[in-house]
């Protein structure tokens, strides 16, 4: 007992006993205890303890450690020997080593690239200093049969929240401006990606300003904040604060700030910002009306998102109530009891890019689904590569069984053998990883083009990623080496040396399971590829309700002013130009806001239809190649057509099956005066897809009028370039001050499915890769098996077996495995691909033959791989194989 009170910390004692050698331990410990007891008389326990620990630590020196177990030099020699043996094994079987290393390296490089891609996708908007406190406001609306999920809110949402809700520290809004024409010298250059922004933009987002004051930059009308690269484009330098830009030929804007270029991992990619103060409707006090501002809230530190959301919902209810009363004559409760609602939710800033795809997102968003898919593919490829490694190593165990037996007889412990095999496999992995990094560096430009992202290879060499790569290398090495290591080191030396284990584990169930898994993964990927491509083809060929080829869209029409009509007439004179329509409403642009129409002038919610309202001219339907199902097109000769309206099929269906033509529709023109506009249905146009094929066609209406957002020209089949040149010449003669800009509608259409196409390409490449790696492994295995059975084959041939018989014999075992793999893979493939297809409202059907093709493909590839070796073995002269012993 006495000793307990006077004894130093136990762990220090134990630690000392652990590291110190036998020669010193007893005596030194005695010395230190004596010193400790002496110290305890003159100082408190803690101090004596601390000094004791210091003493112990001072002894961590070679003289005290060495000699405890095996001397250090000896272990070094052991490792040196591991490496020597590993190297000799490499050289002895170059073919296997090559398959091993190349297979692993290719797999690893695919993993590295996918890893970088995933990292990039996950990094969106995380760099903002306040990223964890910024939320985007979402509005979910339901009224009548309309149900909308919006990424936008009403104009005063943010400001009101800031005033009324204590958790909200700051707010800012963004809205697309569209594009600006900026004068450089005598030319006008189109600057796309311009946004309206509140002056609080820089309080919420981290957009470092190089020149200018972030607090005031977006306060004054006619100011503009541009990025560094825009500045360089127009001035060849970046410090352009206070300079003036001439915009759209007439206005001028003063540069009040130059910000750094937006990083590529940000959910909006604007290059210029103009102040919201110029917009009168930005102060529109409506809550039920127009929802068209992307609104961001910065919450106070520590504020809870859940709490803020419920307060925001209360706030909306409070403001919505009076407004509904005045427009619809209903209280909020009455409105809600009919199943209608306005619901607010928040999306955290870093989630916007990957986890939100609502109506009104600023830019196309990513898809978390693809991140998962690609991560899974990377894992698959890595596992296939590791399996190769394990399979080859265990298969070759026969050749090494004697070595193991010999080592055991000479006194090697199991742990030492495990160490040796693990060292070998880690070494292979290190070589493979070096090769993989090389491959990744080589193909990253190609990869970037494929995925359309600027991923830099330098990311690989950041400490974080570098660390992961290092850990991955070791992990793969240990993982891939562990099975062979334990398998081989467990051999009984007696049986091995006697020769009974030399069959190389012909009956290795484990190895067969691995091969099955490998091929199942390959079949899965092949099926996935086929389905993705069929869907892409389906999109290409689907009748979208209009004819998108040979349509040329011209821009800058809004700047033409009174020259629009003459431009249209003179374009029509060009040979090769069939039809011309003036409107910015084209079926390839994403979001336009819906408007509410009512079937009765009393504006009952139940009579409401929410649909897009497109302002087009009377040439539109014909130019686009759309089809009128009922009624007639607009005509400029009928004055009453200014209140005519053409509905699409969906809208007509929505309104019911009875007589649609001549039906009256009403729209609230002005909330204050309650002024109504009456429309009369004059025609029904066949449904056409005007947004992504992921969505059903929604109700839509055409009204007639002038919209100068664009001019679309239908060209006759023939020499398109010549027609375009002729149009350009005409353009220059009428509007020499404006740049001639155009695009083909089918190209714009393809652009909508860029994401799908990129993913399709990526999946193809990775599927091919995984098959190649699987085949490499299978090839190695087959070679080995043939080698193992050389004698058997020789004897069989002597006994009269035919070449084809032997080939079948050798291939059969492998093919059985592949068949099992196919059986396992098909349900899984069916499950995943049908889920993916369901994300499209319009999609191709899953047909049985797709799975059949994938399976047969896998079988053929496996057969080819195996039979090369099998035939080689079968045609050999039995004399050669039987002569040697």
């Amino acid at each position: 007992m006495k000793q307990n009170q006077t004894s130093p910390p136990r762990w220090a004692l134990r630690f000392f006993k652990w590291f110190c050698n036998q020669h010193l331990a007893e005596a030194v410990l005695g010395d230190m205890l004596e010193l400790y007891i002496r110290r305890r008389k003159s100082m408190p326990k803690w101090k004596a303890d601390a000094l004791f620990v210091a003493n112990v630590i001072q002894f961590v020196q070679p003289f005290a450690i060495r000699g405890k177990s095996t001397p250090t030099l000896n272990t070094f020699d052991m490792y040196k020997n591991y490496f020597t043996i590993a190297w000799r094994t490499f050289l002895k079987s170059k073919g296997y080593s090559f398959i091993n290393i190349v297979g692993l390296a290719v797999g690893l490089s695919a993993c590295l690239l996918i890893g970088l891609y995933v990292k990039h996708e996950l990094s969106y908007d995380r760099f903002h200093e306040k990223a964890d406190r910024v939320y985007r406001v979402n509005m979910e609306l339901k009224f009548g049969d309309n149900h909308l999920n919006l990424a936008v809110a009403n104009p005063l949402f943010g400001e009101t929240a800031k005033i009324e809700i204590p958790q909200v520290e700051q707010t800012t809004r963004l809205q697309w401006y569209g594009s600006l024409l900026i004068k450089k010298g005598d030319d006008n250059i189109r600057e796309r990606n311009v946004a309206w922004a509140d002056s609080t933009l820089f309080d919420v987002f981290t957009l470092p300003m190089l020149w200018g004051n972030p607090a005031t930059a977006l306060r004054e009308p006619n100011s503009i904040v541009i990025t560094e690269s825009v500045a360089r484009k127009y001035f060849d330098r970046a410090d352009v604060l206070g300079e003036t830009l001439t915009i759209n030929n007439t206005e001028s804007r003063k540069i009040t700030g130059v910000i750094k270029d937006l990083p590529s991992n940000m959910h909006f990619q604007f290059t210029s910002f103009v102040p919201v103060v110029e917009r009168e409707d930005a102060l529109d006090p409506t809550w039920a009306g127009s929802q068209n501002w992307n609104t961001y809230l910065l919450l106070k530190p520590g504020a809870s998102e859940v709490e803020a959301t419920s307060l925001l919902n209360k706030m909306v209810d409070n403001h919505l109530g009076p407004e509904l009363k005045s427009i619809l004559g209903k209280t909020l409760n009455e409105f809600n009891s009919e199943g209608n609602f306005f619901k607010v939710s928040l999306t955290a800033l870093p989630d916007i890019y990957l986890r939100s795809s609502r109506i009104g997102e600023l830019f196309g968003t990513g898809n978390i689904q693809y991140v998962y898919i690609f991560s899974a593919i990377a894992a698959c490829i890595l596992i296939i590569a590791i399996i190769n490694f394990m399979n080859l190593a265990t298969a070759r165990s026969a050749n090494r069984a004697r070595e193991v037996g010999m080592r055991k007889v000479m006194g090697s412990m199991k742990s030492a053998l495990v160490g040796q095999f693990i060292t070998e496999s880690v070494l292979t992995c290190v070589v493979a990883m070096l090769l993989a990094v090389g491959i990744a560096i080589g193909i990253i430009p190609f990869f970037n083009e494929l995925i359309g992202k600027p991923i830099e290879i330098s990311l690989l060499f950041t400490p974080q990623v570098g660390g992961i790569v290092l850990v991955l290398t070791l992990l793969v090495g240990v993982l891939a080496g562990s099975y062979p290591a334990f398998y081989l080191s467990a051999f009984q030396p007696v049986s091995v040396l006697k020769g009974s284990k030399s069959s190389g584990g012909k009956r290795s169930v484990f190895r067969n399971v691995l091969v099955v898994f490998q091929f199942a993964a390959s079949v899965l990927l092949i099926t996935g590829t086929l389905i993705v491509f069929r869907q892409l083809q389906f999109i290409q060929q689907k009748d979208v309700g209009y004819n998108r080829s040979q349509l040329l869209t011209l821009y800058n029409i809004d700047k033409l002013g009174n020259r629009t009509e003459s431009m249209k007439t003179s374009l029509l004179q060009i040979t090769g130009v069939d039809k011309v329509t003036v409107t910015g409403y084209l079926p390839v642009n994403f979001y336009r806001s819906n408007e509410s129409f009512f079937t009765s002038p009393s504006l009952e919610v139940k009579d409401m239809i929410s649909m897009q309202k497109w302002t087009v001219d009377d040439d539109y339907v014909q130019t686009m190649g759309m089809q009128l199902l009922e009624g007639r097109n607009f005509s400029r000769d009928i004055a009453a057509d200014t209140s005519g309206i053409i509905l699409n099929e969906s809208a007509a269906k929505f309104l019911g099956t009875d007589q649609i033509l001549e039906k009256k529709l009403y729209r609230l023109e002005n909330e204050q005066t309650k002024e109504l506009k009456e429309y009369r249905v004059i025609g029904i146009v066949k449904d056409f897809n005007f947004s992504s094929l992921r969505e059903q066609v929604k109700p839509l209406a055409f009204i007639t009028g002038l919209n100068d957002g664009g001019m679309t020209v239908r060209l006759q089949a023939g020499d398109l370039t010549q027609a375009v040149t002729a149009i350009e010449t005409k353009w220059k003669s009428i509007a020499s001050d404006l740049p001639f800009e155009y695009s083909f509608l089918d190209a714009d259409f393809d652009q909508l499915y860029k994401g799908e196409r990129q993913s399709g390409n990526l999946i193809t490449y990775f599927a091919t890769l995984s098959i190649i790696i699987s085949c490499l492994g299978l090839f190695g295995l087959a070679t080995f098996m043939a080698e193992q059975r050389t004698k058997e084959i020789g004897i069989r041939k002597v006994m009269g077996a035919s070449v084809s018989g032997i080939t079948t014999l050798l291939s059969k075992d492998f093919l059985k495995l592949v068949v099992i793999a196919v059986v396992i893979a098909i349900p899984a493939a069916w499950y995943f691909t049908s889920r993916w297809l369901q994300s499209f409202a319009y999609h191709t059907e899953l047909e049985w033959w797709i799975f059949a093709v994938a399976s047969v493909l896998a079988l053929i590839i496996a057969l080819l791989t195996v039979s090369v070796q099998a035939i080689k073995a079968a045609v050999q002269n039995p004399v050669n194989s039987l002569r040697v012993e």
Partner: protein
Amino acid sequence: MKGTYLGEFEELVLLSVGILFDDAYGLAIVDELEKQTGRTIMISSAHKALVRLEEKGYLKSKLGGSTETRGGRDKRLYQLTQAGKKVLAESRELRNEMWKQVPKIVWEGGKL
């Protein structure tokens, strides 16, 4: 010769072992050195030197003489070997020889 070189600290340790005679173990040697030199000696450096000197063959050791005050643990008692005695003597000889060669004038503070 490399093997016979004796550092100053090593020499002091050897001498301490001599002084302590039949109770020359780690802590006692540390105490003796601290008393004689007035320096603070780390217990680990003393042991390190002892191990080295034993390896060089100047000391030999045995376990024994445990006491209550050291948790009943044995001491490692050191003793000078013949070689140890010889190397101390040689070292002293060398110094004396060199002392003799220093001109008297140096000690008397004369100027050249």
